């Protein structure tokens, strides 16, 4: 492969590029969906190609193709330089990448059981067993279980001398069940909504979550929700379970700390961020118990990898420390830009540039952005709450384009009265403003409740890119939250 990457880099140099990198990426996906006892989806998808990214005349260009032949490499590499030169005609300033990154290395996701070695029959059997358990519950209208497996092999080489080979493996599973009556639809999901929970690793992830053993309970809850009262509308104490809190972290912390977004590169599409550089190191994001970390190293995290897609090692970065905002997710270019106004900021990128395949340019993406665990158990937290509501599993989500005003809906909720869970309520929603909400966080549960949840549908960029991100969370409590907007 080195001969191929060198050819591309040589063409870029000969056309005048001052920096170039090439990524050669193959993705193999296996997806299985069982819906109401019928295998609706059984697909194997293979995708391969290469992308060349260059700086010429101080501006970026990128070109890509699915044909890895000598002639096509020459054409695409030259096209990338042509595109970069076109970019330069509109720009007043030149790209600065900061210090060079030179790494020759390889990385493989630790895998105990290769999911591609497990037979399709065995996987279907698990989904069918879960489906049967769910549909044994009277009143259930729909059960849909799925598994997904991804193997991504990629080679990165740069004109600075990097040559990195990686193999990333992901495994995921989930079931969503729905009950329908009188214009009402209620659903429950396990282990998480959005179709499934996913992590880096092998089939051991599937075995850990025991889908058949949890499907019946999920179905019973969905049916029970149909006759549950509406979530009350009031300002109260809110406890969120881990999966809902994972999305809360994703939307209200993960996105606003993307430094490319802060500098406006997503302004027309995904939006910007309230965490502007003047707040770096000085802004109180949350209460003292709020500690947020971004890393690419947590085992099984969906944002775990060896190197990002501009060849920077995966690492760990403090984001919020005892409530204070102290770190961004950066690229080489944005890290350099931040240093101009904040000379004490790290000189190097913290390695969060990722591309959705060979035909997309890398952009700053969350890796594992996690809320670190605290002291109490969930039982202790509920026992310590006189009046409130406990919400579980995301159903609806929305947040403004600076990531301040959010509104989430959850699949299920329970009232909390005098330190005990009360009745189940449906159509639960809560809303708030990000720093005020996190300022009201007064407890995070302990490591026994902490899990890295995987989000497989994070959208950003034009052309659109979907990223896989991880979020470690344990249930946490928030004071003075507006809940229940639906009448």
């Amino acid at each position: 492969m080195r001969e191929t990457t060198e050819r591309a880099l040589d063409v870029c140099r000969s056309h005048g590029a001052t920096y170039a990198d090439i990524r050669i990426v193959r993705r193999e996906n296996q997806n299985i969906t069982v819906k109401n006892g019928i295998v609706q989806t059984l697909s194997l998808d293979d995708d391969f190609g290469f992308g060349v990214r260059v700086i010429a005349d101080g501006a970026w260009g990128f070109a890509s193709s699915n044909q890895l032949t000598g002639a096509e490499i020459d054409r695409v590499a030259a096209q990338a330089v042509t595109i970069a030169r076109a970019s330069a005609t509109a720009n007043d300033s030149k790209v600065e990448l900061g210090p060079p990154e030179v790494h020759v290395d390889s990385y493989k996701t630790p895998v105990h059981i290769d999911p591609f070695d497990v037979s399709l029959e065995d996987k279907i059997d698990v989904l069918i067993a879960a489906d049967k358990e769910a549909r044994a519950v009277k009143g259930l209208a729909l059960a849909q279980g799925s598994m997904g497996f991804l193997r991504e092999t990629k080679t990165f080489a740069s004109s600075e001398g990097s040559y990195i080979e990686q193999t990333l493996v992901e495994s995921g599973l989930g079931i969503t069940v729905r009950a329908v009556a009188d214009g009402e639809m209620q659903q429950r999901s396990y282990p998480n909504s959005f179709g499934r929970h996913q992590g880096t690793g092998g089939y051991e992830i599937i075995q850990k979550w025991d889908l058949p053993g949890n499907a019946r309970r999920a179905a019973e809850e969905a049916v029970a929700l149909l006759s549950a009262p509406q979530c009350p509308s009031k300002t109260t104490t809110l406890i969120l379970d881990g999966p809902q809190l994972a999305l809360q972290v994703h939307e209200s912390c993960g996105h606003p700390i993307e430094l490319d977004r802060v500098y406006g590169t997503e302004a027309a599409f995904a939006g910007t961020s309230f965490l502007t550089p003047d707040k770096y190191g000085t802004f109180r994001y949350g209460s003292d118990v709020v500690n947020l970390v971004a890393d690419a190293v947590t085992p099984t995290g969906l944002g775990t990898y060896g190197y990002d897609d501009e060849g920077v090692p995966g690492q760990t970065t403090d984001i919020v420390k005892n409530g204070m905002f102290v770190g961004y997710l950066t690229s080489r270019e944005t890290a350099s830009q931040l240093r101009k106004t904040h000379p004490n900021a790290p000189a190097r990128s913290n390695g969060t540039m990722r591309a959705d395949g060979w035909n997309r340019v890398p952009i700053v993406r969350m890796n594992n952005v996690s809320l670190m665990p605290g002291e109490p158990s969930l039982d202790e937290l509920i026992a310590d709450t006189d009046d409130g509501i406990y919400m579980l599993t995301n159903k609806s989500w929305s947040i403004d384009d600076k990531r301040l005003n959010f509104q989430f809906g959850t699949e299920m909720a329970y009232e909390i009265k005098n330190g005990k869970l009360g009745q189940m309520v449906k159509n639960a929603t809560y809303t708030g403003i990000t720093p005020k909400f996190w300022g009201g966080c007064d407890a995070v549960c302990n490591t026994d409740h902490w899990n890295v949840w995987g989000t497989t549908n994070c959208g950003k960029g034009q052309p659109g890119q979907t990223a896989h991100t991880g979020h470690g969370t344990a249930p946490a409590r928030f004071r003075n939250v507006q809940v229940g907007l639906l009448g």
Partner: protein
Amino acid sequence: MIGKARLKAIADTILSAANADQTEVLVNGQDLALTRFAANSIHQNVSETDVSVRVRSIVGKKIGVASSNDVSEQALKGLVRKAETVASFQQQNPEFRSLPEPLPVRGVDAYSESTAGYSAEARAKGVRTILEQSRSHDMQASGAFSTGTEETMIANSLGVSAYHCGTMATVMTVIMGSNSAGYAADAAQDVSRLDPSDIARIAVDKAIRSKNPTPIDPGSYTVILESDAVATMMFYLGYLGLGAQSMQENRSFMSGRIGQKITGNNITIWDDGFDPRGIMFPFDYEGVPKQKVMLIEEGIARGVVYDTASAQREVGQVSTGHGLPAPNTMGPIPTSLFMKPGVATQEEMIASTKKGIWVTRFHYVNPVHPVKAILTGMTRDGTFLIEDGKITRPLKNLRFTQSILEAFSHAEMLGRDLKMIKMGFGGFATCAPAAKINGFTFTGTTEF
């Protein structure tokens, strides 16, 4: 552009190598480019050439799907074997009857040579005109200028063989002041019909007018929604409930309500893949020609769109040509929505409003209660207060939580112009007028 002959050759290779009872092949060729700008500079500038092949093999009632973008003859034959092997591991799907039989497909002219041949230099020139206007007002421009050609070939072992080639160009920008923003966008099959300078002028004007916004209490207001905002609501209406499968699974607001009134009399919505005002696409991803489908007519629920599988669940029903690529668990959805325009100009809507809110577009919209078609989302890039028939001041952005059906039951006026809004997915487009809607519910505010 790869060309019909090459795509057909790929499909023929697949079908002649197939041993399954029925086989379907979807070949998609792409030649796309996008120039993205932010903070008054081009920061991402990309191009992509790809051909992907998706094979659906049916053995008895067992269905397997495999896809690849390796189009060498050996790889294509291997792909067929893979799909058939997957099918052999499958269980019988008792619902499956057959892939669609061939039907005549009317060709449409959706190709523009000027779009297909548009260069990176030409896109950069268009972007420069936007950046110049932004810089001259001491503002920051961001956005994207894209051009591309997409080819689709669908064939099956029953004789379906359909090819379509279309081009699309889009320009969109958000221009920001220190505490304001303005948005404008346009899309066309022929890039020469787009005017980046005019788009920049609209966005700059809105950014100037939205300087120093002030808050307003949430509550129920009359709103004047620009076409972008109306199109977002229509898209979700289609996604949530205008497909047959959602109705069959009782998760649609249409379930049990065909023939009943679900919106105001002035709301008529249909889907038409042949109307040149939208993105023309003459068949679906099963090769079935698209029918014009009336969905809501003068407020009455009339029908939903079908693919082959959902049509086969109902006696006498045929596919309306709205199938998505296999495998597909969500069922068919409308892809070319139109709303019948009214007669009002935007000036007339404003002049007739005692107190109301002008909304440029929505951000991050998602369903809260799918069966009731309740959505939540934010306003962005130009929100204004109207008092006594005039725009009086810019507003900080608001969160709405609102049933689309209720909103469309209180549409006092519809704009006379239809605007085509390119939605986020493939060939999806929605043609919508502006609308003046009474009793629109805002449930929160934000700080900008």
